């Protein structure tokens, strides 16, 4: 059988989502951001919510996310996406609002905003790209940078005495009663991407059902910042990041559930 007989519309099983805009992305080859963008585009299409979606783009490598996913967007100041999303969502309760934030953005400068948006149980989805580094600004240490990991501000590796500890902020988020669904996923293999997509779908559905804040961490690579090849970065991530940031749901409950008693 010839390829041209196979490559026909009726046999199409996988294609770019219509919600993904037809432009080249500025990301480095192999960057996880692209995969997560794809998941979001596909789900916005599948759930038919393009006309009610408002995305909040961060300052970070994903600052241009608004050029890639074809929905209305707001670009937020560094770290403040959860506050921006709060403003949008409170005044527009029928919209689907999500933030898309890096680990520097969410876990460092924006830690107050994310904690409080989640504590208030804002009805939004938070996508948290944890690549353990500040990609955009050239590879500085992030709160989530692993111990010993080399970055441009920890050239001899992160030393916890000087720089503190890699922060499992998602675990803290899960403790907040405002969140209903908190999960940690990855996109380094096809299986992981599919699983991640299921989680994001559930998270979006939660928001559509007004169940409070849904939070999806995606443990990601930044091969540029890590100074590795894309596959090398995926492997390094699986071996080093995932033991510290293990994948899976951290919370799947209803908003308002009290945190561990003590």
């Amino acid at each position, binding site marked *: 059988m010839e390829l041209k007989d196979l490559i026909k519309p009726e046999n199409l*099983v*996988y294609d770019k989502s219509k919600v993904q805009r037809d432009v080249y*992305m500025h990301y480095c080859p*192999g960057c996880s951001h692209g995969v997560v963008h*794809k998941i979001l585009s596909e789900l916005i299409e599948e759930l038919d919510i393009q006309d009610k979606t408002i995305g909040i783009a961060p300052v970070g490598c994903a600052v241009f996310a608004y050029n890639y996913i074809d929905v209305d967007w707001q670009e937020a100041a560094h770290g403040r996406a959860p506050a921006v999303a709060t403003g949008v969502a409170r005044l527009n309760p029928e919209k689907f609002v999500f933030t898309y934030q890096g680990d520097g953005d969410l876990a460092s400068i924006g830690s107050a905003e994310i904690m409080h948006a989640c504590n208030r149980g804002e009805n939004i989805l938070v996508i948290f790209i944890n690549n353990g580094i500040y990609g955009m600004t050239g590879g500085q240490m992030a709160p989530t940078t692993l111990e010993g990991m080399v970055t441009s501000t920890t050239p001899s590796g992160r030393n916890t005495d000087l720089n503190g500890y890699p922060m499992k902020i998602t675990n803290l988020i899960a403790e907040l009663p405002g969140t209903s669904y908190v999960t940690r996923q990855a*996109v380094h293999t*096809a299986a992981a991407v599919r699983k991640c997509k299921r989680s994001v779908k559930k998270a979006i559905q939660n928001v559509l059902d007004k169940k409070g804040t849904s939070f999806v961490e995606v443990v990601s690579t930044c091969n540029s910042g890590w100074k590795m090849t894309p596959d090398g970065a995926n492997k390094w991530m699986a071996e080093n990041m995932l033991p510290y940031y293990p994948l899976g749901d951290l919370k799947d409950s209803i908003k308002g559930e009290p945190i561990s008693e003590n």
Partner: protein
Amino acid sequence: MAKVIGAVVVDKEGCKGCNLCVEACPHDVLNLNKEVNSRGYHYSYMENPENCIGCANCGVVCPDTCITIYRMKI
């Protein structure tokens, strides 16, 4: 048991040659081309098209959504 065959089309210009699809393919269908595209990247292509089962793994992992996948039962 019906056999499934597949094929992929790579958007040559969109591809950044990251190699993730190559790694993700369970049947060694893909490889990076020796040639570069106009943006200077060694783009991915079907080196062993006959092996493709249309599982879409390559498409799913591609960060730049350059892969379209077709499948049919024979």
